[in-house]
């Protein structure tokens, strides 16, 4: 027995072996590639096709960027420098930079004003976008910003925005006093107070007190016009959208139908027809002799358009709220405005943020449509004065690519922000 045992066990290892590395195909980059790029035949073929696409894109675009000419007075000069090589003529961007951003009629010595307004926009918008980072006192600046921006961009006497502001302040004060009795009284009282103040200050008449050189809206253009239309229309359309959504949910049939007809009508027609209305038809509906700015008419129409879409987003959010929330508000004895302001809307607006941002991004992209009714926004500038000029006739890709890039940066930024905010605000199922 001992004999056999001695035979069968020749060797017993006394030390533990160190752990071996996984085989080369199962670790690091190779494993990743085997899993993600070449897991089976079909995947490998797809990978090769994709690599070819990327290769083709890079090799065809790289020389165009690398050989790009950034300093030349015209496309002919560009071509002479290039001597037949492939290369972009980015000189048009440096040469016409101001036109692309501000349009071709804004006085060049005043470019600092819209630039300053643009920079202040970030300060104004920061406390709204990042509640937790910036102190709440900065919201005061946000409230003042529209008036500052108006003063900077359009110029004129400082009394105009100040008096507009006074109207709002008076309206708010009356509202704050009356709202404790009834929301409706506060709301209408505030509106009436604001209009009274505006009417009173309108009696002051034209003045040149602290006046900046005025610039008419028809002189504005370029990317600035897109940004102006985008910010103004989005911020105006959110309150209107909320009102329309509440109206559509209302139990009062007449109010409900007014809202339904408005929303369905606006959503059913393309924006371009509404812009046609702004440019050729709206004048017929205004009092004879009234001369509304085209800019204001376009803002009215785009705001109508956007508020109908935002109303639908908010209606979806209102419908998504559990019924218990409405019933809880009722059982606390809150009346309709209180229930909406304190319970329903804060939750509904939170749910509707991604939708509202989608509408805002879409709207900002749609501001390029004003080029069709011959306003010189970024696209209008490119297709009109710049491509039509003898110096730059034929520089398509650089200009269109630049326009696409600008819009991409803004819209992509906004949508990334909304994704971040969605996560930030998610209070349920953590």
């Amino acid at each position, binding site marked *: 027995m001992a004999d056999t045992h001695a035979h069968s066990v020749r060797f017993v290892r006394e030390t533990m072996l160190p752990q071996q590395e996984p085989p080369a195909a199962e670790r690091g980059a190779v494993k990743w590639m085997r899993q993600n*790029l070449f897991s089976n035949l079909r*995947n490998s073929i797809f990978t090769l096709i*994709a690599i070819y696409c990327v290769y083709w894109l890079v090799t065809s675009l790289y020389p165009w960027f690398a050989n790009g000419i950034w300093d030349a007075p015209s496309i002919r000069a560009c071509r002479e420098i290039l001597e037949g090589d492939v290369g972009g003529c980015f000189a048009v961007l440096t040469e016409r930079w101001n036109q692309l951003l501000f349009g071709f009629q804004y006085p060049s010595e005043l470019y600092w004003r819209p630039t300053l307004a643009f920079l202040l926009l970030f300060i104004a918008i920061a406390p709204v976008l990042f509640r937790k980072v910036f102190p709440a006192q900065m919201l005061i600046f946000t409230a003042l910003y529209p008036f500052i921006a108006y003063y900077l961009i359009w110029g004129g006497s400082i009394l105009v925005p100040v008096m507009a502001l006074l109207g709002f302040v008076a309206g708010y004060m009356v509202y704050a006093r009356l709202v404790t009795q009834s929301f409706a009284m506060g709301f209408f009282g505030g509106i009436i107070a604001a209009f009274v103040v505006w009417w009173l200050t309108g009696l002051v008449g034209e003045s040149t007190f602290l006046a900046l050189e005025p610039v008419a809206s028809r002189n504005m253009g370029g990317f600035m016009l897109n940004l102006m239309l985008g910010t103004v229309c989005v911020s105006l359309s959110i309150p209107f959208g909320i009102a329309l959504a509440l109206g559509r949910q209302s139990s009062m049939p007449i109010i409900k139908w007014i809202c339904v007809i408005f929303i369905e009508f606006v959503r059913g*027609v*393309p924006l371009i027809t509404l812009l046609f209305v702004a440019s050729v038809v709206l004048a017929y509906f205004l009092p*004879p002799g009234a001369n509304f700015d085209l800019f204001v008419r376009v803002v009215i129409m785009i705001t109508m358009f956007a508020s109908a879409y935002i109303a639908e987003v908010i209606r979806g959010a209102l419908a998504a709220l559990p019924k218990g929330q409405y019933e809880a508000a009722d059982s606390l004895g809150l*009346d309709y405005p209180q229930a909406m302001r304190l319970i329903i809307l804060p939750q509904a607006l939170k749910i509707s943020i991604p939708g509202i941002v989608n509408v805002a991004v879409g709207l900002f*992209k749609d501001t*390029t449509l004003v080029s069709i009714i011959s306003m010189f926004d970024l696209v209008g500038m490119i297709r009109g004065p710049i491509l039509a000029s003898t110096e730059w006739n034929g520089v398509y890709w650089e200009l269109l690519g630049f326009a696409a890039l600008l819009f*991409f940066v803004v819209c992509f930024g906004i949508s990334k922000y909304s994704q971040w905010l969605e996560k930030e605000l998610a209070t349920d199922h953590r």
Partner: protein
Amino acid sequence: MTTLSDPPQSAFKPSMLLNDTRYRGYTFQFIALVCVAALFAYLGSNLAQNLRDAGLVISFDFLGEPANYDINQTLIEYNNQMDHWRAALVGVLNTLLVSFLACITATVIGVFAGVARLSQNWLVRKLMSAYVEAFRNVPVLIWIIIIFTVMTAVMPSPRDFRGEDAAASMVLFDSVAFTNRGVYIPKPIFAPGGWSVIYVFLAGVVGAFWYRRYATKLLYATGKLLPMGWPALAIAFVPAILVFFILGRPITLEYPELGGFNFQGGINILGSLIALWFALAIYTGAFIAENVRAGILSVSKGQTEAAASLGLRPNRIMNLVILPQALRVIIPPLISHYLNITKNSSLAIAVGYMDLTGTLGGITLNQTGRAIECILLLMAFYLTISLSISAVMNVYNKSVSLKER
């Protein structure tokens, strides 16, 4: 014993119109109605005043006058002596044509990109999200202009096709020519009997669908599995091909040929149509891709696993379990994207494609100066399409919504 009862109803007093919730609604509605009526009255009186000042009357008589302009793409017979009404009709058909083409192409692109975004392949996934982000975040007008520029500024002119060592050449066995005046493709010519081939083919397609339904029914009823793929294809194509050869090839192709300064014969697809078609398709395709992705992701993983544990094969899992549930999520936004394509096709005016906005809202409006009437008609057309599509969508939504009990 005490009973709880409502306090006795007080008689109606006028102050209740403001203070009693039962009556306050009437007050508000009355105020709203008066406001809206006042607004319309104000706008209407301004309109009447302005029209009187300008010496105009609203009338649609101008639609009967000769249009006096040519349209470069007409699906129905049209010449410049026909009336504005006919020109508008040509525009309507052009709108419908480009919307239809763009909807189909966008669906194909969107489904492909949406599925590819869920692929196991890292590179394909990243490429597709780059596509989606790039196209969703740039205005469609810029894409239309970019593709239009490709079609007009980059493509060779017909002259370049001339000569021994021509700068450009036709592709696909000399049948298709890409020029800066549009794309020329062969045109089918129907000899007598040619249409019967088409009819037989259509009947074959109907037959194929009928066969598939029959096979499915048989499968569910008896468990007997008939082959579905190749018999359906055969039913669709074989009879048509047989008829084609029996009748002695009644359909021939007329190839575009270089003659004079331009190509002759064939069908000329305008650059503006292609620009609009593809720009709308790839732009909307990016949105559809996101919907498709969301739809597939919305089907919970348990469904796949349950189907697999029942022993279904991957193809069957996709067809019988995942797709029916995903489609419920995908189709409503898909239809609203179709609607967006139709509405965005009005951007045709930026590249000179003669859709309804180009004829009625463009040249007719400028020639006759009848802004109000033209834009009213334009809006009515788009509104009709939108409302009818959303009516169809509501019916569909009702039919697929979860039947909760």
